[in-house]
């Protein structure tokens, strides 16, 4: 048993890094997004279920400590959430039903309001700058806008609204999935930890902690950011005088889950609403745009570092690259998923890289396997 001392053998870092790990992270994330695209109907409820899991998990933990077993606590919390959501939805149902009936009409009305705003702005620009008048800029842009409205929007709007309606039943899966995450999440992590060989056990524990920590920090940060954004936007829109300030603020804050594009879409929606409801007061629209820019700046420099922050520990360059990959491969769900997915894949790729780079660990595993084989075959050798 005794052998020559080998000092500081196991000193390799747990997480490998470098170009290979980065390439593996980008390749695996792209592959996963491609696979997830095939089951897109499941991805959105799954994503919402993960967000729900991290939002409801602290309550389950409190109940567990108060003496309620894990299964019951998960049932109480997930059931309570479902009942609370249903109770909140009941008063809103007549309004939602009315919106569903007049939805297409409302979209056209808001688009017309937006078009009117653009035309007025173009007229103003033309009156200020002579070269634009010479180019007949207003007439040209109006023709293009009209073409866009009559062809693209009319052709695709009904399809988009129908597709959105078809997603709604799938969203009901979210609380159901969240219940199972709450009930069996810890058991799954234990199962995962126990399924790896002894030699790799501590590294797997580290990987599980990092993956859980990354996802928790990201999604809990996202929820906090959504609350802060909703509060700021609702307060600002109410101060400007835009009706439905809270609903618009919440919608814009949720849309901001889609990196870059979401904030722009949220801003455009609010601008359309303001332009339609206040056709003679363009300053309200400009104030709404100013408010969005201010909240965006606050997000980037104050709120995001405090919430989502550097939870993913990724360099900005691959982050931007991954956002483009996510959008190209998985569309809007791809854009939402790509960063947390890449964060998790990076930890797993780094851990596997660390194991592959550590000959001592592999030797320990081989030694343990040999010991087991000897034990199993002990009576056969005699």
């Amino acid at each position, binding site marked *: *048993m*005794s*052998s*020559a*001392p*080998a*000092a*500081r*053998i*196991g*000193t390799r*870092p*747990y997480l490998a890094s470098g170009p290979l790990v980065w390439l593996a992270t980008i390749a695996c994330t792209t592959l996963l997004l491609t696979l997830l695209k095939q089951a897109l109907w499941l991805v959105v409820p799954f994503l919402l279920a993960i967000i729900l899991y991290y939002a409801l998990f*602290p309550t389950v*933990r409190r109940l*567990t*400590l*108060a*003496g309620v*077993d*894990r299964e019951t606590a998960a049932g109480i919390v997930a059931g309570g959430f479902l009942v609370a959501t249903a109770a909140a939805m009941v008063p809103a149902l007549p309004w939602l039903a009315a919106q569903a009936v007049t939805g297409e009409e409302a979209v056209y009305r808001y688009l017309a309001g937006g078009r009117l705003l653009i035309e007025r702005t173009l007229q103003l620009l033309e009156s200020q700058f002579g070269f634009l008048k010479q180019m007949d800029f207003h007439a040209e842009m109006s023709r293009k806008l009209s073409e866009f409205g009559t062809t693209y929007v009319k052709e695709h709007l009904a399809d988009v609204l129908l597709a959105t309606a078809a997603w709604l039943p799938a969203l009901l899966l979210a609380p159901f999935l969240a219940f199972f995450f709450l009930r069996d999440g*810890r058991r799954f992590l*234990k199962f995962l*930890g*126990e399924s790896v060989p*002894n*030699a790799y*056990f*501590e*590294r797997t*524990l*580290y990987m*599980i*902690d990092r993956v*859980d*920590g990354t996802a928790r920090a990201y999604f809990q940060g996202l929820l906090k950011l959504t609350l802060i954004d909703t509060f700021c936007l609702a307060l600002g829109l109410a101060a400007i005088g835009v009706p439905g300030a809270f609903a618009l603020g919440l919608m814009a804050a949720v849309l901001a889950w889609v990196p870059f594009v979401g904030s722009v879409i949220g801003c455009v929606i609010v601008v359309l609403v303001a332009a339609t409801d206040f056709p003679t007061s363009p300053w309200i629209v400009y104030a709404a745009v100013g408010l969005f820019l201010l909240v965006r700046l606050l997000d980037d420099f104050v709120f995001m570092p405090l919430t989502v922050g550097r939870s993913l520990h990724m360099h900005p360059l691959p982050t931007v690259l991954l956002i483009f990959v996510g959008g190209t491969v998985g569309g809007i769900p791809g854009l939402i998923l790509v960063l947390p997915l890449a964060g998790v894949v990076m930890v797993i790729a780094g851990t596997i890289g660390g194991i592959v780079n550590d000959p*001592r660990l592999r030797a*320990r595993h081989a*030694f*343990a396997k040999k*010991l*087991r084989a000897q*034990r199993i075959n002990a009576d056969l050798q005699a």
Partner: protein
Amino acid sequence: MLAFFQGRNETPRLGTLRQLALFSTLSRLELRVVDGLLHERRFLKGEIIFDEGEEGQALHVVITGRVVICKQGDPVAGRIAEINAGVAFGELALLENAPRALQARAEEDCVVASLSRGDLESLLVTHAVIASKILLQLARQLGRQLRDRSPLTERRPL
């Protein structure tokens, strides 16, 4: 009906955990929380549990069997301590956030319960009472080990 108000009987698993010094002061509910975090590993005689210089990610408690703490690769001449059932080991790397100072090997077939660094740290935030009870037991164990290794004349409480 009365059974509802009476404490439920402790399961054999919780009974086993209560036998371990590290968890002996925990209540039944606290023990259940900790049980949800523990990972059980089985090691064969001679198998390495961790190496010297390795990053420590878990503290371990021997449930059955015996573990030897020794200098790297030298379990006979370099033997430092024997860890019997009920006693924790590998805690220093966690407390000091430093690499493992020595190697741990299974002296005989053993079952070990492991608590990860992440879970211990999250216990400190979410269940501070449980974490403080575990850490107090760890401090007591370290104090005992310190006294046991000191010359006889110095064996008095500091």
